[in-house]
């Protein structure tokens, strides 16, 4: 499947620019899909409010490595919740890729129902996708993309990822 990296204009803060991934044949970006699906369930409101706040604070303070959970080659947020999710002690997990202190790619996620991502049918595909994209982007660094402050520089107009 072909995917491109898109800027999330709504989430442009002083220290960080957020991006997301869009599959060519899908109507929504991965991050939009996450937000839409999670917000459809009122039980998620508490966790989603906190995730939104984490994104805002990361945007204002900078994407320090220790603000993220490490998920093999990728990352996830948030680190902690104040509000426990009524349906799972693990809460909602949003997968992301922290490319630098000022560039973060927000992907997809779901309610995590098991300790390990591989044991949770909800988050497993998002965890795997995040790791796949993280590795691909890492391979593209230097040849196809360059990281500038708050900006991914695409060295070719038709940049895309084959996933």
């Amino acid at each position: 499947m072909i995917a491109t990296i898109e800027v999330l204009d709504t989430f442009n803060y002083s220290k960080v620019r957020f991006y997301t991934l869009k599959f060519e044949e899908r109507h929504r970006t991965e991050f939009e899909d996450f937000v839409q699906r999670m917000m459809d369930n009122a039980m998620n409101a508490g966790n989603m409010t906190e995730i939104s706040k984490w994104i805002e604070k990361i945007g204002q303070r900078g994407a320090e490595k220790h603000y993220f959970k490490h998920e093999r080659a990728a990352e996830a947020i948030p680190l902690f919740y104040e509000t426990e999710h009524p349906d799972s002690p693990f809460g909602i997990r949003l997968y992301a890729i922290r490319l630098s202190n000022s560039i973060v790619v927000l992907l997809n996620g779901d309610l995590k129902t098991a300790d390990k991502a591989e044991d949770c049918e909800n988050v497993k595909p998002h965890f795997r996708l995040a790791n796949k994209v993280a590795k691909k982007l890492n391979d593209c660094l230097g040849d196809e993309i360059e990281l500038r402050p708050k900006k991914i520089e695409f060295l070719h107009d038709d940049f895309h990822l084959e996933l």
Partner: protein
Amino acid sequence: MSTILEQFKAMGENAPKHVDIYVEKSMDILDRIHDLMEEEDINQRQLAERLGKKETEVSRWINGVQNFTLKTLCRLEEALGQDIIKVPKKRHVIARFISSGGTATKMKQSKPTVKARETNEVDTMELMAA
């Protein structure tokens, strides 16, 4: 009409104050732990050794698998040799009469915030001339 992403962003912006405080303080604590580890020039494995714990367990503390408990923070303070959080105490500092004609007075010390920790560690004294 606002988009779903704008609505989601607004959820964070309009979050209750305690959520804002919680996220901000979590980040302050994470910054502090990593600053102290940098100061001590130790990595996660070495921190685990100091704590007499497995690295995976320490990783769960500082990489967000579970919330910090007060006990965890105390253990980390012991291992890192410095405060991670500091609770301000309400106290009165009695100023000293050091010059002729001066009058000693009492003042409340302002409560330091977590961020202001370093600058408030020295007792403040105030002298009022008679």
